[in-house]
């Protein structure tokens, strides 16, 4: 932790707007806002007045900055494929909660491992993350430390302002660029506690257990896929190619959804996950047990989006002993 390197680390509320304006030097400033339809979302902060730091959770998690819903991977033109041009924009994403930061850290593990995904890597390199502490609500179930700096710069709410902790050289550079806006912290910054997940890795055999909830969930589930769309660590994708009138074609990567029936389909008519029960089990396995190199890694970060978005109130954590519910809730 290099928080001390900043020296002055306290930002008074009255200086917040000036600080945000200063952030624009480092890229296009984005943060939590509320849309005209009343939906919380990360969007460009053209006007600082649109910033809503009292947000609970955005409907769509910040993964959209790293994995666009649809992106071009390749173009075919004049007899050969070539990689699509990389995005090279700089974005400063302000006001990200610790659970979403943990989600991005998980996506980094997936997409920056060998072989790194060029599109993801380019967007990640251009993304500055400024985290902020939060107040958990009824849907939250993380035991992430409420204040941690798995990001470039982390703001912990204190009486009358924020305590700043830099997590990277870029965070330190931001602190330096805003030096005259900062004051000496009234208290030294607390040592960042180690983050831990609310749920321990699960035994994959639990998915075949006789737990009565499996059948109940399968009857209720609408296969709408909302839980996966809004999950900060769901990343599975489909790849499609479309011909162009010019004679070439474009290959696109799009978010896919393991709750959708065609997710397990193969050529011909076979489908390895034709039933809702099988698809729910697949999601359970991916979230709480992990696939292949990530076996034993829980990707649920406790943001509560799936529970708040599910139209039939399915909460897969109820399957886990002590995972959810009034008696088994997390501490």
């Amino acid at each position: 932790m290099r928080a001390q390197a900043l020296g002055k680390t306290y930002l008074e509320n009255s200086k917040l707007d000036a600080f945000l304006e200063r952030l624009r030097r480092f890229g296009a400033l984005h943060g939590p806002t509320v849309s005209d339809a009343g939906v919380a979302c990360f969007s460009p902060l053209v006007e600082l007045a649109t910033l809503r730091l009292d947000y609970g959770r955005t409907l769509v998690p910040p993964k959209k900055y790293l994995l666009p819903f649809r992106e071009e991977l390749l173009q075919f033109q004049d007899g050969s494929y070539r990689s699509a041009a990389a995005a090279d924009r700089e974005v400063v994403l302000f006001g990200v909660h610790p659970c979403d930061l943990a989600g991005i850290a998980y996506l980094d593990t997936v997409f920056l491992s060998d072989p790194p995904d060029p599109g993801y890597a380019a967007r990640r390199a251009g993304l500055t993350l400024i985290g902020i502490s939060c107040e958990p609500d009824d849907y939250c179930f993380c035991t992430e430390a409420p204040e941690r700096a798995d990001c470039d710069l982390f703001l912990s709410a204190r009486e009358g302002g924020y305590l700043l902790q830099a997590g990277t050289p870029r965070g330190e550079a931001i602190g330096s660029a805003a030096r005259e806006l900062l004051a000496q912290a009234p208290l030294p910054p607390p040592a960042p506690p180690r983050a831990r997940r609310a749920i321990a890795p699960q035994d994959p055999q639990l998915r075949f257990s006789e737990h009565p909830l499996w059948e109940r969930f399968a009857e209720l589930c609408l296969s709408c896929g909302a839980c996966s769309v809004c999950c900060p660590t769901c990343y599975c994708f489909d790849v499609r190619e479309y011909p162009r009138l010019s004679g070439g074609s474009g290959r696109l990567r799009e978010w896919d959804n393991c709750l959708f029936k065609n997710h397990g389909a193969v050529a011909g008519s076979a489908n390895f996950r034709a039933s809702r029960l099988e698809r729910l089990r697949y999601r359970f396995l991916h979230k709480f047990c992990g696939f292949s190199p990530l076996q034993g890694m829980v990707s649920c970060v406790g943001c509560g989006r799936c529970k708040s978005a599910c139209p039939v109130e399915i909460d897969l954590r109820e399957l886990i002993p002590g995972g959810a519910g009034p008696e088994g809730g997390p501490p």
Partner: protein
Amino acid sequence: MRSLPDPHLPHPATLLERRQLSADTALFRVAPAPAALAALARFVPGQFVQLSVPGAGEVPISPADLPGEDGTLELCVRRVGHVTKLLHDALPGQPLGLRGPFGTGFPVREMAGSPVLLLAGGLGIAPLRSLLFHLLRHRDDFGEITLMYGARQPELMLFREELVALAAGGALRLFLTVDFAPLQPAGDFSCAVGLLPDLLQGFRFDAGRSFAAVCGPPALYRCLVGELQGAGVAPGRILLSLERRMRCGIGRCCHCAVGQLLCCTDGPVFRLSELASIPEAL
């Protein structure tokens, strides 16, 4: 910033020729560009490549021969979807794309010295033909080679003349069977009528030392693994080539998980012992 090598970018390749094998299945001979050919030098039978048909997309296909031997690659493809339809309509000279090889192949080094039983159903003959070519090329390294191949009807049996010629030369024992057969004209090569597991039941072999390599439709595995285990083949020596729809081939898209394993990187060839606790695998 796009200086990283792009794992999604296929190498160029060209369609050289197509040979119709049945009403909906053809053998495509493809010429990979040098870079693709260099990558294919590490090919092990049972691995797959991602074949791109421009304008349509990409499909995972297990080569049906040993790619690179003569600088070309044979892909046995059934016309079942969007991409394969465009491939079937393509003319020689059509530009294609190739990525891979991906995944695990058959453990050919470990199989050395043992008898090998190949069990193919329908289009499942394609990857096993590649394995068969490997076994025949290194004939002295392996024990007895037996191929049991089942198809729905005689006209759907792929590579029949080729397999019969190899068997006639003494390279392997060949058993062919079809589910249904109309009256076959005299003089035509005839085969048994019945299912593969029935064929296996009457078959005597050194089960304790043998490896069994199986590839076919999902229903085939469920029938055969019981028979093979009953005959005494160890679960670690029953090799199953599974089918899933691999979109990326590099363990990212998450369409192909078999339990917690990914078909594209941990498979597509699995040992039965790996799949024992995964009821939905077969």
